[in-house]
């Protein structure tokens, strides 16, 4: 069994038992990345020297019998997390020269847990996208089909993990940017409750929606990595001061007695029937394992997308105002005056989708429109949250597809922004309500002669990460979908 096909849990056991060293592991992954990443375009920066240093340090600790479950495990970070002394670009020309002077809390915590940093992964520019086609560094390809997208915005992290170039990677999820790529690349991707993981050092897109999370190949791995990432951070005012459970210890909770709610609104005409069928099979499997299943209705949920496309652009239009060429980032040549400095630095530095969202946000916040759009959207958001809360009064988790379709062809949805936005139709609700949600593999559909992964989404009440992980883990004991690897990368 090749090292790169092992899960994080298996690697952890192997390192502890000294079956292989972290250095060996790291060299193996760096070799694969060098050879195979260019075709996927999964990485922006490969931190080879740093990785080797991390690996050696980890091996020393392991030799002394010290270290925890993640000591010596290689990982990658989405290029949205600030890494001290390392280029942090958000896949944008605006930050193509930006060397972060500090580590994000997420980076600090995985580092303290002993992980090895392989590199920074590609993404949609400033996390705005659902296909990883807006990156300044070019689109990312799906290891399951090089002509298709891996999903976005955490497409680079997804491609790296799905292509076995890294055992796990961090991601961020504002409207589905962890879950949707996970679904399209046969990964387990979890977005925790808003406030569960610190946003300090995570370059902001939409502050009230952004959350950091993990893309891995199993729920067990996700439990390990989320546990190392989560917890209160005094530097983030929106960080919640509540203890982090031992997610790994709670994985074995049985499915029997679980009350599952199937979100009626998700099974609409936008859903690919083949995807719907696989999701239905998964629901049946849960039922067979002892869960009770019923329908739930979240009537405000169909307004998720319009709500999101008011709130997220509004917040990002303000968050991205700091990029003006004065203190960091791209600065235009020979500005004529202050206005020219701003307009050209920002005009040159940002791609089209980012500019679109900044302008949308500026518009909906502007005088005369605030009430009709922003205020209205925040009210509808409340309705959506109330719908979920009502459902959780009767069921433990709600379930549905993650994405309406499997991975689509590169360039097939880029002509109309709305078509692209609708990819997030099932994922956005959880962000609006601040709820934890996970996507796990539940089967494959055949398209264009390829097997394309399909994801099952579970959403839980606030701070129900343990439940989502244990249900996912139990499902992964009953099924094998998550173990399949794309042939070219296995």
């Amino acid at each position, binding site marked *: 069994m090749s090292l790169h096909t092992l899960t994080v849990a298996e690697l952890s056991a192997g390192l502890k038992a000294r079956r292989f060293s972290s250095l060996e592991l790291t060299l193996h992954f760096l070799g694969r990345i060098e050879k195979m990443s260019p075709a996927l375009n999964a990485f922006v920066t490969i931190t080879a020297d740093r990785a080797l240093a991390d690996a050696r340090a980890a091996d020393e600790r392991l030799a002394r019998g010290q270290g925890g479950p993640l000591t010596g495990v290689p990982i990658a970070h989405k290029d949205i997390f600030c890494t001290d002394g390392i280029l942090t670009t958000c896949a944008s020309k605006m930050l193509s020269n930006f060397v972060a002077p500090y580590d994000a809390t997420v980076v600090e915590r995985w580092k303290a847990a002993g992980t090895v940093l392989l590199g920074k992964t590609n993404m949609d520019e400033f996390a705005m996208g659902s296909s990883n086609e807006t990156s300044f560094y070019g689109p990312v390809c799906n290891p399951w089909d090089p002509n298709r997208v891996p999903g976005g915005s955490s497409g680079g992290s997804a491609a790296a993990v799905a292509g076995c170039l890294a055992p796990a990677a961090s991601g961020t999820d504002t409207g589905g940017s962890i879950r949707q790529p996970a679904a399209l690349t046969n990964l387990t991707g979890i977005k925790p409750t808003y406030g569960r993981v610190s946003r300090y050092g995570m370059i902001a897109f939409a502050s009230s929606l952004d959350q950091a999370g993990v893309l891995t190949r199993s729920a067990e791995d996700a439990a390990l990595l989320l546990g190392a990432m989560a917890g209160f951070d005094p530097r983030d005012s929106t960080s919640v001061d509540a203890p982090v459970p031992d997610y790994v210890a709670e994985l074995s909770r049985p499915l029997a007695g679980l009350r599952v709610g199937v979100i009626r609104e998700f099974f609409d005409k936008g859903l690919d029937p083949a995807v719907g069928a696989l999701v239905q099979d998964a629901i049946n499997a849960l039922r067979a394992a002892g869960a009770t299943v019923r329908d739930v209705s979240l009537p405000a949920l169909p307004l998720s997308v*319009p709500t999101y496309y008011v709130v997220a652009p509004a917040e990002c239009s303000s968050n991205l105002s700091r990029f003006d060429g004065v203190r960091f980032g791209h600065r235009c040549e020979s500005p004529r005056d202050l206005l020219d400095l701003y307009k*050209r630095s*920002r005009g040159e530095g940002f791609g089209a989708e980012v500019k679109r969202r900044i302008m949308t946000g500026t518009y909906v916040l502007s005088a005369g429109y605030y009430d009709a759009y922003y205020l*209205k959207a925040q009210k509808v958001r409340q*309705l959506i949250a109330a719908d979920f809360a009502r459902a959780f009064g009767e069921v433990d988790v709600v379930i549905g597809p993650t994405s309406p379709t499997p991975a689509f062809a590169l360039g097939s949805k880029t002509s109309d922004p709305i078509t692209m936005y609708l990819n997030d139709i099932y994922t956005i609700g959880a962000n609006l309500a601040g709820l934890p949600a996970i996507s796990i593999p539940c089967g494959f559909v055949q398209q264009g002669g390829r097997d394309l992964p399909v994801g099952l989404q579970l959403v839980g009440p606030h701070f129900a990460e343990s439940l989502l992980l244990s249900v996912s883990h139990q499902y992964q004991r009953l099924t094998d979908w998550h173990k399949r690897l794309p042939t070219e990368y296995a």
Partner: protein
Amino acid sequence: MSLTRAQVEGIAHLARLEITEAQLPVYVDSLSRIIDLVEQLATADTGGVEPMAHPLAEQVQRLRADEVTESDRHDKYQQNATAVAAGLYLVPKVLD
């Protein structure tokens, strides 16, 4: 709802984004589509509903003790700036 050229130019100016003549119609079109999309919100009945202040409703702002915890790191921070002199960030002359 269609946005006009003038509106989009005004928005671009407010957001300090340079949009060329050639690009302008593209943005007018895509922004109009997006506004059409979000117009759907008008159909929602939100009478008596409070706007969501924060996803976790009971959370309130944490208060930090008034202590100086930072030291002078301007050398490190200014490595990312392209125009610095005598410790100051330089910009085209600011008129009052």
